[in-house]
């Protein structure tokens, strides 16, 4: 019996988190699927798919000591893996401007209403503490078309943010 789990770990960043977490999984006989790991502020977040044939309790037992030692929260969720079925993004959206509350909510609401399905989103706050700059990058599939998406997001620029919608032309060769 083989099961897939979505494993999330988060906590204060320090060197060695990825090596210790993935080392513990390897020693426990687990396989990794797709993963995403990143530093956010002074913190580190891990989102990974792990396969085990020993069940959730064994997986948790393998990770718990490492999570505790590193001071990370740990959560497991059984999932349907759906590997090898990547939807291809056909649009990317870049938003930047002075940081203010609600940018992500406004952009993603308008985009969702225009048919966007988000495949990947990352946002960052740059600039200084006095003058923060917000940068948002989204990739997804535009079920209603790229032009419709551009039109839907255009009005948001009146609020002083810059919104760019570009098609992703994937070359297959």
């Amino acid at each position, binding site marked *: 019996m083989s099961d897939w789990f979505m494993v999330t770990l988060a906590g204060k960043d320090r060197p060695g988190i990825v090596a210790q977490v993935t080392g513990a999984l390897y020693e426990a006989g687990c396989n990794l699927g797709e993963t995403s790991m990143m530093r956010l502020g002074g913190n580190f977040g891990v989102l990974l798919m792990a396969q085990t044939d020993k069940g959730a309790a064994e997986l948790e037992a393998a990770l718990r000591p490492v999570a505790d030692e590193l001071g990370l929260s740990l959560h497991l969720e059984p999932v349907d893996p759906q590997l*090898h*079925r*990547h939807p*291809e*993004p056909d649009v990317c959206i870049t938003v930047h401007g002075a940081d203010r509350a609600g940018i992500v909510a406004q952009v993603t609401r308008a985009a969702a209403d225009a048919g966007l399905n988000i495949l*990947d989103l*990352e946002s960052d706050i740059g600039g200084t503490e006095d003058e923060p700059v917000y940068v948002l*990058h989204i990739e997804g599939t535009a079920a209603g078309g790229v032009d419709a998406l551009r039109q839907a997001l255009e009005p948001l620029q009146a609020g002083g943010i810059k919104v760019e919608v570009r098609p*992703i*032309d*994937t*070359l*297959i*060769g």
Partner: protein
Amino acid sequence: MPVLKILTYPDERLRQVSAPVERFDERLLERIADLEETRLDGPAAVGIAAPQVGWFERVVIVDVSGRKNTPNHGRLVLVNPEIVDWEGYVVGREGCLSVPDYTGNVIRAERIRLQAQDPDGRHREFDMEGFEARAVQHELDHLDGLLFLDRLVSRRRDLFRRKTYR
């Protein structure tokens, strides 16, 4: 004409350097026809290189003429192609018949000058840009045993990896 089997990564044969074509004969034309049929059989590929079907000679086919607003030279069969000049660079998303279910960002020259022979051995020269130039660079890499995986830059950020291209 048969549709040929596409070699897929990590098949080591994709890593070999292909040899120049020396004989421009009927057999070459037949193999080119099979290569084109194989390209058209797959999922919307704008190009294919001979080594992708286990034919290790310097032949590629590129055709971006089916795309809207894309400058192009029509369907190009390029034998012994060589990029002799290039200018600018641009990041774009690529996938490959030989690498199913994965796409990634790759930096390519924006404009290139290309010399090649046609299937009858005549020497040709092309100036090309944009998507067509990208397709040619992708296919020519196959002739030298390179895949777009060798040139990946970050998918999440347009940061350029500090790597010296081979």
